[in-house]
């Protein structure tokens, strides 16, 4: 039979580590118990790719017409329109408001926290 697994306190008791009042330290925090003035750098959840349907329509047209541009002019025009619209959307969107998922990016959060830091000592 393999060695029986006793709980940790049993082994400690048996070994005599805690005789003579040699207790483990009650609390020794390595850092101050206060909130830091920054959050971790989180990789922002990316938005979806735009204009995929127009692109696939255009590519289907290309496949049929042996990649000539003349017969596919209509599809190419719609693709360009979609791209221009998406570009304008991206320019207009304001990053100071919440993103689509309801989170601020970590850089903006850090800027705000820096303006209002945690007070660690009183004068």
């Amino acid at each position, binding site marked *: 039979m393999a060695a029986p697994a006793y709980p940790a306190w049993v082994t400690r008791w048996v070994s005599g580590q805690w005789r003579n009042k040699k207790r483990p330290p009650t609390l020794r925090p390595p850092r101050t118990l206060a909130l830091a003035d920054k959050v971790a750098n989180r990789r922002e959840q*990316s938005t979806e*790719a735009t204009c995929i349907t127009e*692109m696939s329509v*255009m*590519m289907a047209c*290309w*496949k049929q017409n042996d*990649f*000539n*541009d003349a017969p596919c002019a209509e599809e190419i025009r719609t693709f360009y329109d979609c791209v221009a619209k998406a570009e304008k959307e991206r320019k207009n969107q304001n990053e100071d408001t919440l993103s689509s998922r309801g989170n601020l990016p970590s850089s903006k959060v850090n800027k705000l926290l820096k303006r209002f830091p945690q007070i660690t000592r009183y004068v």
Partner: protein
Amino acid sequence: TARALGYSPASLAPCRIMPVRWTRYNPSYLEPEVKKESHQKPLEELTEEEREQMELKAVRPIKAAPPSLSSSVFSDPMISKFTNMMMKSGNKVLARSLMSQTLEAIKRKQLEKYHKAPENEKETIECNPYVIFHQALKNCQPIIGLSNITRGGKTYQVPVPLTDNRKRFLAMKWLITECRENKHRRTLMPEKLSQELLLAFNNEGPVIKRKHVLHKMAEANRAYAHFRWW
């Protein structure tokens, strides 16, 4: 500070005669308006925005016009850009003469074709070298490009829409590299360039083929299009 004045610190450049790379205009400076037609318009014809623009120009300083910007009817920004890309080691004189020889060669070839063609086909032949140049460049521009995106350690070629500037740049770059590399030792650049431009005008030739190859690769990789995040 020294940086704001546009001077380099003395430690880096003890004797500097040429203008400094970092000189920068104040953001309040406006771009110069070079076209003669916009200055000759009477006041009534201007729209609201143009009137506001004129009033703004009366109070704001204006940047100095760069030497490549000209108000002549013969100057064309695309041609200037192409000439600059052809230029090597700052030899603008040579690049400009090559460009004018190219346009002349195109005109000569088209005129030859024109005079040899039968009467009914004479209208279809385009003789204006500028029109041919612009149409050829337009035909060479790729519509969709590929960009490297790394996911999970592997790099994929993802099809991506291109900006106008990037398309123009790619078209010009392909033309120039094609003319520099794939020619006989004794053919001169204007000759080869005029050949390539005429082929591109008719949607033939190696540059158009290179564009089609790019499109085919984008079409083959269309499954990775979702890796884009813009």
